[in-house]
Structure formats: structure tokens, C-alpha cells
């Protein structure tokens, strides 16, 4: 017995010792050849494969790689909260031309790291502006007028709803996500004053963006209360909203990227897109042209920073007449005739 125990101990020790070898081999097999700017990026909570926000940023990088020859080998998917700053710091210490933090949650981390590396350029998607505090000079704050795009999908949902009841599933209960909710509600009320919007959030921490099980239960609850279209702004949590919609044969509206996929055909009514990919690409392009500058950039319907999806996959769900009304509404927001609330 004792001998067997000692023997097993050695086997386990050996297996553990071999583990890093297996991992190490994989690391350096990535292609490095490139001529363009060297770009680093740290992903947000939902991570790559969220079919949403992070994937959009990733598409922007891939486009930069394809068209600008950018080196995009330095991307990090952090684990828990404290990893974010160290991931940024690790990238800042490398010889990179631009470093992205994807998500509002990087705001404080980027402020700190940018202060410690004044010679490096940073960009933060959804940077949260603070009262009285300026954006550090070497940081580009990329912001979007989510409320404008949400207003449009809210109006669309209200026009198509048979029950006059809509749902909104937010990720984390914070100001950024309130913008989506406010725009959606305002748009829905604009289109149909009698509409009722149920607003719920998946949680109060960053994990609320990666809890699809919770998303599914929230959505099932709303559908059972009579809602027939749900808009989500909750990262990977929204996968659960789509599952619920598929289950209940109801409709859902995607966010950030076009979230239509073959398995959700007829389920995803449209998506409120945030052209994170384009803003990432433009920032890299500016670096390559030597025209990079810090400060705040806010992109709305006018700048094509936000919008909604209307294409071959969903045009049968949206009657042409409704689409025309939506386009007219869009023009009135761009002209400034309609002001969309942020709260």
C-alpha cells in the first residue's frame, strides 16, 4: 500500500512536470511576419467567441492585419479582475505601437497604466468619462451613442409587437448599459405610447456579462409575462436570451455585432450594432499614418458608429413599410430633430 502510494506520487509529479512542456510548444507557433503597426489588445469579460462586443473588436484587428499588415499576435483574454491591469502592463512593456482595452471596465486600469507609460499609445473602447477628470493625453477614448441605435430597435420592436410588451435584458447594472435601456424604452414609447417595457439586469458585477444561464431564465420569465420581443445588451449572457427566444418561438434583438447565425434564423429580429471593429481599425490606421491622437471620440448614427441590421437574413421579419418608417426615424435623429435620452 505504502509503496503504491509513493509510486502514484511520482506519477502525478511527473505528469505535472510535463504539463508546461505541452503548453510551451504551442505558444511560439503563431505567425509573426508583419510590416505594419504592432497592436496589443486585452479582451473584456465576455471574451472571444461571445458573438458580440469582443468578437467585433477582434474583427477590427483582423481587418487591420489584412489591410494594414498589422501585427496582432499580442492579444490577451484575462481571467479575473486583477488580471486586467497586469495584462495591460505586460503589453505596455512590450514594443507595441498601440494597446487596446476592450470595455468600460478598463477605464481605471488604462488610466493607471497610461500614466506609468507616458510614451505608449492606448485606446479604450467605451471609456467611462469621469466628472472633472480629463482623459490622459496618450489615451484615445472611443465612445458610442448606444442610445441612438437602441432607440431605433426599440421603435422597430414596438411596431412589430403583438402584445405591446417588450423586454430588455441588461448585463451589469451600470450607466453604460442604462444608455441602451433608456434608448430602447424611448424608441418603443415613441413608436407606441401604450407599450410596456420590462427592464432587468443579470447582475451587479462584471460576471453579469458572461452568465448565459441567468440570461435564459430572465428572458423566459419575460416571455411568460407576455413580452414577445426582447432586446439584450449583456455580452455572452445574451446567448441565453437567444436560447429562450428559440425555445419559446419568440423574437430577440442582438447587440454590438450582427448576432444572426444559422441556428438562430427567425429568432434574431435584428441587432443593434456598434461598429467597434471599424473604430478599432480606424485607430490602427491612424497609427500607421502617423496621425494618431488622444482624446474622446464619440460615434453615433451620423458617424455610422451605431446602427441596426437589415439584410437578407431578416428582411422577411421586417415588412418593407416598417423599414421605411425606421429609415425616416433614423434621418430625424441624425438631423437632430429627435433627441434621444441617455438615462
Amino acid at each position, binding site marked *: 500500500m505504502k509503496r503504491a*502510494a509513493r509510486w*502514484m*506520487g511520482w506519477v502525478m509529479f511527473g505528469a505535472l512536470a510535463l504539463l508546461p512542456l505541452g*503548453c510551451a510548444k*504551442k505558444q511560439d507557433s503563431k505567425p509573426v511576419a508583419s510590416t505594419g503597426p504592432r497592436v496589443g489588445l486585452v*479582451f473584456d469579460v*465576455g*471574451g*472571444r*467567441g*461571445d*458573438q458580440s462586443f*469582443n468578437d467585433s473588436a477582434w474583427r477590427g484587428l483582423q481587418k487591420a492585419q489584412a489591410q494594414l499588415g498589422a501585427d496582432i499576435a499580442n492579444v490577451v*483574454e484575462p*481571467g479575473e479582475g486583477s488580471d486586467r491591469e497586469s495584462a495591460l502592463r505586460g503589453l505596455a512593456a512590450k514594443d507595441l505601437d498601440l494597446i487596446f482595452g476592450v470595455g468600460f471596465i478598463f477605464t481605471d486600469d488604462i488610466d493607471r497604466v497610461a500614466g506609468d507609460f507616458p510614451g505608449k499609445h492606448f485606446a479604450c473602447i467605451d471609456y467611462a468619462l469621469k466628472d472633472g477628470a480629463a482623459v490622459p493625453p496618450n489615451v484615445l477614448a472611443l465612445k458610442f451613442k448606444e442610445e441612438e441605435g437602441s432607440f431605433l430597435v426599440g421603435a422597430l420592436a414596438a411596431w412589430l409587437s403583438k402584445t405591446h410588451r417588450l423586454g430588455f435584458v441588461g448585463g451589469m*447594472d451600470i450607466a453604460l448599459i442604462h444608455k441602451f435601456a433608456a434608448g430602447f424604452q424611448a424608441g418603443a414609447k415613441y413608436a407606441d405610447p401604450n407599450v410596456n417595457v*420590462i*427592464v*432587468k*439586469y443579470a*447582475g*451587479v458585477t462584471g*460576471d453579469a456579462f*458572461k*452568465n*448565459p*444561464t*441567468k440570461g*435564459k*431564465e*430572465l428572458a*423566459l*420569465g419575460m416571455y*411568460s409575462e407576455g413580452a414577445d420581443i426582447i432586446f439584450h445588451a449583456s455580452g*455572452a449572457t445574451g*446567448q*441565453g436570451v437567444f*436560447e429562450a427566444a428559440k425555445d419559446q418561438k419568440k423574437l430577440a434583438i442582438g447587440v454590438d455585432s450582427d448576432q444572426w*447565425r444559422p*441556428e438562430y434564423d427567425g429568432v434574431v429580429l435584428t441587432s443593434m450594432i456598434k461598429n467597434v471593429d471599424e473604430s478599432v481599425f480606424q485607430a490602427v490606421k491612424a497609427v500607421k499614418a502617423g496621425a494618431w491622437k488622444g482624446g474622446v471620440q464619440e460615434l453615433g448614427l451620423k458617424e455610422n458608429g451605431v446602427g441596426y441590421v437589415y439584410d437578407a437574413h431578416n428582411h422577411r421579419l421586417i415588412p418593407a413599410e416598417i423599414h421605411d418608417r425606421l429609415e425616416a426615424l433614423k434621418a430625424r435623429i441624425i438631423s437632430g430633430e429627435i433627441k434621444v435620452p441617455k438615462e
Partner: protein
Amino acid sequence: MIAPFLSQVLRISVPYLFAALGGTFSERGGTINIALEGILLTSAFAAAVTTYFTHDPWLGLAAAVLAGLLTALLHAVICVTFRADQIVSGIAINLLAAGLTKFLLKEIFGSSSNSPRVEGLPEWHLAGVGGIPVLGDILRSPLLLLAAIGVPVGHFLLYRTPFGLRLRACGEHPEAADALGVSVTRIRYTGILISGAVTALGGAWLALDQHSFTDGMSGGRGYIALAAMIVGKWSPLGAAGGCLLFGAAETLQIRLQGGAVPTQFIQMIPYLLTMVVLAGFIGRAAAPRMSGVPYRKEE
């Protein structure tokens, strides 16, 4: 209104039910099983990956059970054979499961956060019962049905069979069991392995009901199941009651939102309830006497 509420309670409770039932079998035999959380994670991962490659959710379910057994075996080897501290082993396994699933997810799917969509278990459409509220939901979902059957079967196994008696003896008084010719090591191993296999069904539910694997998708459910087991005084029926209680609290949390009460407060309901119930209402927590103590056979 009440039927959708109850159905939601049941759905939310499924992973708790399996994990708490699993935990009962391990702890009744004398081994504390904090590794429930890690078992949920590895089995959910195995279910998603296997279903993705074979397109057969039943194979995914089988793979989940296998992964649960292997994870539990690791816990058993460390705790029973090597007599290491059971809490430390459990925590180590949970950390290992979190890291390993993330690492393998990245290796297999190129994302350390999400797997692609996979098929789920088919729903059963039995004539005549599908329309009945709540009961119809149970009969429609294979895993929900299994949970409903598993709890009384587990209770019977533990309190009405020779194996159950031996298992409980190993948790209460291993010396006595040993003196009567029961192999404490073998019985404890069996208890932990049952624990792994049963908990794995909960992990499979997480992945197959969600049609994907998400990094860290167990989300602390293993720990809540552990609390439910303690609330239920280490008996399968009691633990199931605890699970339904927590499931109800979580459903309430989902349903109450959007009213006058702030989200932040409503989010606390399940955790507040856990503390209140643990601290106040269950009376003396009657843990198996020798739970957590490795058994050393006198030679």
C-alpha cells in the same frame, strides 16, 4: 402565474439537486466534497465538447459522467489514499478545473471564454401529460425527470440498503465499520465516485440546457449545493428541499426585478437566505461525525 414560477424554480434547481445529492453521498461516507464546483465545471465542459464533435447529446451526457468520475477519483485518491486535507484537495481541484477547462477551451475552440453552440438533449413529447403544468415540464426533460427520480432513489439507497448503512457507518464511526469487516477505503471511494457521477449530471444540464460551455459557468453552484446539503442535514430528501428553497429564492430574484426595489438589493436575496437559513433555522447541524477525518487503519 404560479405554474411558470414553479417550472422556473425546478429548472434553476436542477444543477443544485444533482450536486447536493452527490455531495450527500461523499460526506455521508466521511469525505467533505468541496470539489463539487470543479466537478460541475469539468463535466459541463466534457458534455459540450463531446456533443460538439459527435453531434450526439447522449454521448455528451456519458462523457460528462466520465469526466465527473475522473475528477472525483482524483479527490478520492488525494483524500482517502493519501489522507490529505479534504478542504485543501477540494479547493485545489476547483482551481484546477477552472484553469484546465479554460486552457482546453482555448486549445480546442480558439476562445478561452465560450464554446460554439451544441445540440441539447431532445425533449420528450408524451401524449396526454405535456399540457399539465409543472409535471409536464418534468416529464418533458430527461434530466429534470432524472433529478426527480434520483432524489428518492438516493434516499432509499442511503437509508434502506446494506450499502447505505455501510457508507453511513464509515462517516460516523469508521473504526466500528472496520471492525465489522467493512473496507472503509473501498466504501469511501464508492461514495466519492457516486458523488462525482451524480454531480456530473448537473454539469451536463448546465452545458446542454445552455447549448454551449462558458468559462466558469458553474458560477458557484457547487458551493450553493453544499449549503443546501447542510440545510437538509445531509439527507437526500432534506438536501432536495434546500435546493428548491434556493432555487425559489433565485427565481424570486429574477421575477422581482424591475420594480421599486433596487437591483443590487434583489441580487442579494439568495445569499441572504443562505445565511439566515444556515444561521437560524436548521437547528443543530448534524454532520456525519467523522466527516473530514481521514481513516487510518490500525496495523
